[in-house]
């Protein structure tokens, strides 16, 4: 607030100094094109307006001009850079690209019923590393990937404590996934995992299983999009299921190598 006042004062003083030199009064426009308006450009370069907010009905009314406004008892003016303005810096990307190799998810066995039993290795996008605590976003065990959101699906899975969710985009590349479609997010549930785990049998998950070579390979062009445990976003491309990407020395796999991009801004819906 103070900064705005200062800039306003500065702007006015500049205006005054200009007027003192010229005869014509120069006009000051805000980024919305309004003379002496209060709209401001946020850190992402987007023009943000002030608005009237009704804290009972939660209705908002964008303002072009803040002069001559009468507020009802339940209304307030929210200035563009107010900390309570969710639009301010809302689309700012806070992107972190990362690469993680040989995440070990190989500590599992398959029981006689075909169930996979074993430890989950948990990963946090904000840490860019394997984590033990409840701040994990996704977990790996064999070919299974779980998210820290929703409910437990299978045996031996950690409890979900966050709001994480996921979906898969097919036929694209990591850099071409730029928009996050929140309507596609699914959380793990008692009946299904958000990332289908078919062990590669029918290509509905992230991998393909070759019945003759018994190799698991990531399906080219499949990008996994996640909401993290605390409501931020990430996209990820799995590059290999084998230690050092070498199936001949590690035929059973369970080692994930992947590229990811983490969007630390929980309100930015793009990468």
């Amino acid at each position: 607030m103070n900064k705005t006042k200062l800039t306003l004062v500065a702007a006015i003083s500049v205006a005054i100094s200009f007027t003192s030199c010229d005869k014509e009064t120069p006009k000051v426009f805000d980024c919305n094109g309004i003379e002496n308006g209060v709209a401001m450009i946020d850190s992402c370069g987007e023009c943000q307006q002030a608005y009237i907010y009704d804290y009972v009905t939660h209705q908002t009314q964008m303002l072009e001009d803040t002069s001559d406004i009468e507020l009802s008892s339940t209304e307030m003016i929210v200035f563009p850079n107010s900390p309570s303005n969710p639009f301010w810096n809302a689309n700012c990307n806070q992107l972190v690209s990362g690469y993680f190799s040989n995440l070990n998810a190989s500590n599992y066995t398959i029981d006689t019923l075909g169930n996979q039993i074993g430890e989950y290795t948990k990963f946090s996008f904000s840490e860019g590393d394997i984590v033990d605590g409840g701040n994990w976003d996704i977990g790996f065990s064999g070919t299974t990937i779980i998210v820290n959101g929703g409910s437990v699906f299978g045996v031996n899975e950690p409890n979900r404590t966050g709001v994480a969710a996921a979906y898969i985009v097919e036929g694209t590349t990591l850099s071409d996934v730029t928009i996050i479609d929140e309507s596609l997010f699914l959380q793990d549930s008692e009946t299904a995992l958000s990332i289908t785990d078919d062990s590669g049998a029918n290509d509905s998950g992230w991998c393909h299983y070759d019945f003759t070579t018994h190799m698991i390979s990531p399906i080219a062009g499949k990008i996994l999009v996640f909401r993290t445990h605390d409501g931020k976003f990430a996209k990820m491309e799995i590059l290999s299921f084998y230690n050092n990407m070498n199936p001949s020395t590690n035929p059973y796999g369970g080692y994930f190598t992947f590229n990811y991009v983490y969007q630390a801004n929980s309100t930015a819906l793009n990468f």
Partner: protein
Amino acid sequence: MNKLILVFFCPIICFSQTAIDTSLMLSELEEIIISATKSEKALDKLPIPTTIISSTEIYESGAVTLDDILEEQTGIITTTNYIGGEGVQLQGLDPSYTLILVDGLPIIGRSAGILDLKRISVNDIEKIEIVRGASSSLYGSEAIGGVINIITKENKKIGFNSDISLKLASYNTLNSSINIKYKTNKFQIGNSFHFIQSDGYDLNENDDYQTVTPFYNFTLSNNIKYFISEKINIESKVSLFQEQQEETGIYNSETLDGNNNQENFTTYLIIKHLISENIKHELDYYFTNYKTQQFLDFQNGESFSDSYFNQKLRKSEYKFIYNKNKNNVILGMGINNESLDRTDFSIIPNNTSTYSFLQFDIGIRDKINLITGSRYDYYKIYSSQFSNKVALSYFISKNTTIKSSVGTGYKTPDFRQLYFDFANSTNGYTVLGSIIAKDRITFLDNNGEIQELFYPIDHIGTSLDSENSLNINLGITHKIHTKINLDVNFFKNDIYNLIEPKLIANRNNGNSIFSYFNVSEVQTKGLESNIDIKFTNNLSFNVGYQLLFSEDVDAINKIKNGDVFALDVENGSFKLSEDDYYSLFNRSRHTANAKIYYSIPSKKLSLNLRTTYRSKFALFDSNGNSILDKYDEFISGYFILNSGVTKTFYNTSVQIGINNILNYSNVNYLSHISGRNYFINLNIKLNKKQKK
């Protein structure tokens, strides 16, 4: 490649200056081929692309089993699958699309579509005929890529003929054969016995497995022919093949031991009757039974796995043949009955089919030979098939002939695709043959065990049908010079309704259920060519080359739509363009062979040097799109170089040779190629002429 070809030409230049007279190796006798028309036909008149491998070539190469000799032929590659059988790829088509016959009779016992050529001994063989291109109009199912027919030796000389051979080779391999034959004017009998024993070999000594485990096998056969009168003769054949191979395995670091036993029993009877000079007819009956028994046990004797396979084929065919001047008509009809009892089947299927065929072979004014053939196969559980072929040759001049043929081929669904009832508990999937899939899925669905169905239930198990093909050949044979023969053939095969497993349902426990559907389409096209050069009667050289393009039509369409990506482990996925598609798996764009035969009649010595080349190929996808594109990992091209020397003294010949001189091997992917190996072979002929 260029360097090696130069190496090949060098000895020609050297040898060709030492021209030696007298001949014996290549006679100018007109070659006869039976398989292309089911009747005797002069090879040079035939409008269908064919190859004949003579007994001399087989003997000089030191070949023991069928794979040894076929892999040296133009346009033929022997390939293994994950089960280990060694099959044949002809005109770029998978092994399941080539019919393999002995004396015109089909050999059974395919495993995952592959008939293991290692089972078939080349002892006592007169010649091998290879007919290229669809031949279903004569042979019915499976003859899509072509037909390979092994013709056993017949008694030619009156009297007592026999030969014994003993061959020792690397890996403690012992081969011995005894052939005893007796012939009079009215009667002939032949017995032959071939025994092979080997310690196998190990391409990777650091792992716990041996690449090829020790085995032995024998083939015993008897052949009797009796001339009831001048016009009627009757012939019978009985043969038995048995093999036992050790098998080992490891499960949870426990060693498993077992055996793999195979047996093939065959019996055959044919009556031929010459009605008049121009008309004959014949009736035959064939029974063959192929059995395997495989088991692996833990060290304490408990069973780990045990499986069996028992296939029977009964076949009877009647043929009526009219032959006058240059025209030939064949009318035939027959019945097939096939059954299979095996592990992972819940019933024992038994199918009967009947067929008839008609073929006209017409010569027109010494210039044109026209062959048309049609065959109708009646099936009950899938569509009946009507197969046709038209072939035409035109003799432009004494030295030049143009040949062309168009034919349709088909392959019925095999028993596995119809009746398989297999559940893999460790990987958690089920595969159901199309016939039993519907009942099984309905049952599971009613019990609430199905989580998701990917096909409407009425669509499951009703639609499996034969795979079909269209084959076109266009070729030319040209005598460039009295000593140089050129043969080029362009071919194209289009196979559609290809059967593949597809996911039909997911169970509640997440396990997948697969069944078979007619889904995909593939094409192969290219050219086969041979040049034979006879420098002198004692020095000959031939080169063969095949250019092959193959494609999965569905994959190409997906690439065109921009739906196919490839994964680069450094940089992630990227979209493929049409030019990035390479071929079907296990196809080499270039394959070639070259052979030099040189003989010194005065010293009764003959030498040969033979090489085969295969350009790069890939057995599976390595970049996440299930198709083969140019960014995949390939197995590099390679040469195999073989050589042999034969010296004859009186009635004995001694042969020594080295196979795979360059010691090429590929531990992971080409286990059927052993390293360099040596052999010595002793063959004694005992003939006694009977006085009339």
